[in-house]
C-alpha cells in the first residue's frame, strides 16, 4: 500500500466528523435565522390563519376589524344593566347582578382567579393598590428613568371605593377610569361581573370596623 493511503483515510474520517459537530452545535443553540424547510408538502396553504398578515390590506391584517360604527345584531347589548352596569336611563349604577347570574361560590372562585390575572398586577392580591407592577414602576422612577407618569392604583379598600355599587365596579372594569385603562376588551362580560362580585367580597373581608 502506498504511504498516502493512511493519512488520507485519517483526514477523511476527521473531516467527516465536522458536519456532525456543526449540527450538534446547532441543536443546542437558539438562532434567529429562518427555519430550514426542506420538504414543503402542503405546510403553507393559500388561506390565512388567525392573526396572520395579508399584504392586500393597507394595515396588513388578514383578520378584518369591524367597520367603524358597526352595531351588534339582535337586542343583546341593549341591556344596560348587563352591559353597562347602569339603570336603563343611564342615571345611576345598579347595585344588583344582572338576571341569570347567580352569586355563588363558583362565581366568586371564578372572580378570584380573574382578579388575580387582570387586577392584582396593579391593585395587589389583597386590593391595597400595591401590586408588583406598582413596585416595579416606583423602582423605575427611583432609578430616574424618563417618561414615568405612573399613578398609584387606588386601594380598593378606600372609603369611597367601598361604597361603590357592583354596577360601578363593573363599569370601571369595562370602560376604565381616568388613569386606569379599560379592560372590556380583555375580559368577557360574565367574567367582569364575577370580578365585581369578588371585589365586593374582598372589600367585606378586609372590613374591620362595624
Amino acid at each position, binding site marked *: *500500500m502506498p504511504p498516502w493511503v493512511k493519512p488520507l483515510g485519517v483526514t477523511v474520517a476527521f473531516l467527516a466528523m465536522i458536519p456532525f459537530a456543526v*449540527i450538534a452545535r446547532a441543536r443546542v443553540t437558539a438562532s434567529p435565522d429562518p427555519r430550514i424547510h426542506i420538504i414543503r408538502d402542503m405546510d403553507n396553504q393559500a388561506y390565512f*390563519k388567525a392573526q396572520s398578515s395579508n399584504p392586500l390590506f393597507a394595515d396588513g391584517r388578514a383578520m378584518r376589524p369591524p367597520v367603524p360604527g358597526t352595531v351588534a345584531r339582535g337586542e343583546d347589548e341593549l341591556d344596560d344593566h348587563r352591559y353597562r352596569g347602569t339603570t336603563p336611563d343611564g342615571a345611576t349604577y345598579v347595585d344588583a347582578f344582572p338576571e341569570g347570574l347567580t352569586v355563588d361560590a363558583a362565581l366568586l372562585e371564578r372572580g378570584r382567579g380573574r382578579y388575580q*390575572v387582570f387586577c392584582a398586577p396593579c391593585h395587589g392580591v389583597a386590593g391595597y393598590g400595591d401590586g408588583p407592577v406598582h413596585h416595579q414602576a416606583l423602582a423605575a422612577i427611583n432609578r430616574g428613568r424618563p417618561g*414615568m407618569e405612573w399613578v398609584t392604583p387606588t386601594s380598593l379598600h378606600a372609603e369611597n371605593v367601598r361604597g361603590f355599587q357592583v354596577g360601578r365596579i363593573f363599569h370601571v372594569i369595562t370602560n376604565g377610569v381616568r388613569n386606569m*385603562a379599560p379592560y372590556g376588551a380583555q375580559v368577557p362580560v360574565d367574567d367582569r361581573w364575577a370580578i365585581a362580585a369578588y371585589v365586593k367580597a374582598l372589600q367585606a373581608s378586609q372590613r374591620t370596623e362595624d
Partner: protein
Amino acid sequence: MSWNAPQKVIFPRWVDPLVKLAGAGAVLGGAYVAMLVAYGASPKTLDVGYAPEQPVPYSHTLHVGQLGLDCRYCHTSVERGPHANVPPTATCMNCHTKVLTESPQLAPVRESAQTGKPIPWVRVHDLPDYVYFDHSAHVTRGIGCVSCHGRVDTMDIVQQVATLSMAWCIDCHRHPERHLRPPEEATNMTWAPPGGGSVEAREAFGRQFRLDHKINPPTDCSTCHR
C-alpha cells in the same frame, strides 16, 4: 495489433487492497450520509431553538418573571379557543401610556397605538396548515403552557423548545400523565404536585388526575387532520 487482442491495462499490485477499501468505503459512506441526514434533518435540529428577532424587544422575563403578569393577561383567548392570540397594542398601552412613555424601544408600540397599524410580530411557532391544534382543549384539561413552550418566564426572546412534530403530539396523547396538573395551574411555570417535582411524583399525580377527570387524548388521525 489485431482487433481481438486489446491491450491490457495492468494495475499495480498495491491497488488490490484499495479495491476492498473502496467497497468498505462505499458501504460506510452510505451509512454516513444516511446518519447525517437523519441527524441533520430531524425536527429537533431544524425546528427547535428558533428565536426570531422581534420588532419590539419585548421580554417575557421582565413582564412575566419580574412583573408577575399571568399569561392570560395578554394571551386572553388561550382558554377559550383554538388560537392563542398575541396581544393587541392596546394591551401594552394599558401600562405603557404611564410607564416609560419616552423609551425608544417602545416607539413602534406608540406608533401602532396612534396609527392603528398592528405591530408586525414575527410568528415563532407554526404548525403545518393541515394540522388542527386547539389550545383550549389542552389548557382547560390540565396541560400547562410549560409542557409545550418551556420556561417562557425566563426567555428574553421567545424560542421554540418543542419539535411540534407528529411524534411529539402522539407521545403525549399516549402518555399524558407526567404533564397533567390542575387546570387552574395551567399558566404556572413552576407548578409541582404535592409530592415534589420528580418525574415519579408527577406521574403518580397524573395517573390519579387522569382517572378522576377522564382525560383521554384521542390518537385517531381525524383528531388532528380534519
